[in-house]
């Protein structure tokens, strides 16, 4: 029982931390600059597009430049790609919404609604904690949320609609 509680607490913290929304940043894709900051030498590669950079892996770099990356450089490469991917997804033209989909909210509400996970996902941390402690508002509140998510009436904390399905 104690372990279960710890596990749920851990899940809550990780879920809420990963869903914490960041303010959209200015997109700057200076790949040479990014890779330089990460400590990766891309000097042998020219005309890299963002997609090319995201598709790079140590073996591909070795095949192109003949340079073998160290462990540290491999991890730095991964971190740099993650950073670019994150900026890309929050600033993608057209997809500038909340980035939270109705499908994800629906699945979270259906399977973990009694823990209020869908509320954490949508940014309502306070309501999420209340639902966590009351088993989703005795189940009724979670059920209401489920219907509202399906009909698209429930908005995220920042007031945006969920992206439809």
């Amino acid at each position, binding site marked *: 029982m104690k372990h279960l509680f710890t596990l749920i607490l851990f899940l809550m913290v990780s879920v809420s931390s990963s869903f914490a929304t960041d303010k959209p940043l200015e997109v700057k894709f200076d790949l040479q600059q990014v890779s330089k900051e990460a400590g990766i030498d891309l000097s042998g590669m020219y005309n890299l597009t963002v997609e090319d950079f995201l598709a790079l*892996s*140590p*073996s591909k770099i070795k095949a192109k430049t003949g340079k073998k990356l160290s*462990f540290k450089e*491999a*991890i730095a*490469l*991964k971190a740099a790609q*993650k950073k670019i991917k994150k900026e890309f*997804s929050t600033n993608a033209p057209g997809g500038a919404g909340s980035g939270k989909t109705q499908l994800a909210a629906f699945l979270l509400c259906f399977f973990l609604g009694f823990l209020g996970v869908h509320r954490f996902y949508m940014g309502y941390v306070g309501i999420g904690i209340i639902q966590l402690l009351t088993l989703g508002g005795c189940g009724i509140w979670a059920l209401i949320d489920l219907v509202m998510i399906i009909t698209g009436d429930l908005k995220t904390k920042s007031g945006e609609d969920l992206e439809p399905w």
Partner: protein
Amino acid sequence: MVNWNHPRVIMARLVLYVLVPLVLLILPASYFDDGGSICLSVLLFNKECYACGMTRSIMHLIHLDFTDAVYYNPIGFLVFPLLAYMWIKYFLKDWRRYNKVRLNNAVL
């Protein structure tokens, strides 16, 4: 209902225990590199979970390509020895069971 203790079923399992690593070794190390993700965490939230990249990492690990293994998932270095241990353990367990069942059948 399958009788999991039937000698032929145990034999099939034993063959799988040997065959799967061999097939993975014969395939090129980059075999799984350029595929789409089936991880729910990626599909729903665009967020890689701690196990994402484990297949690719271990695939590179068994081909002794350590840099790529670190790149795809550093936790693979921890998981691979544990996996290998369990693999051998279950192989030996089935091996002993197979011999025992065969022996019993021979006596009867």
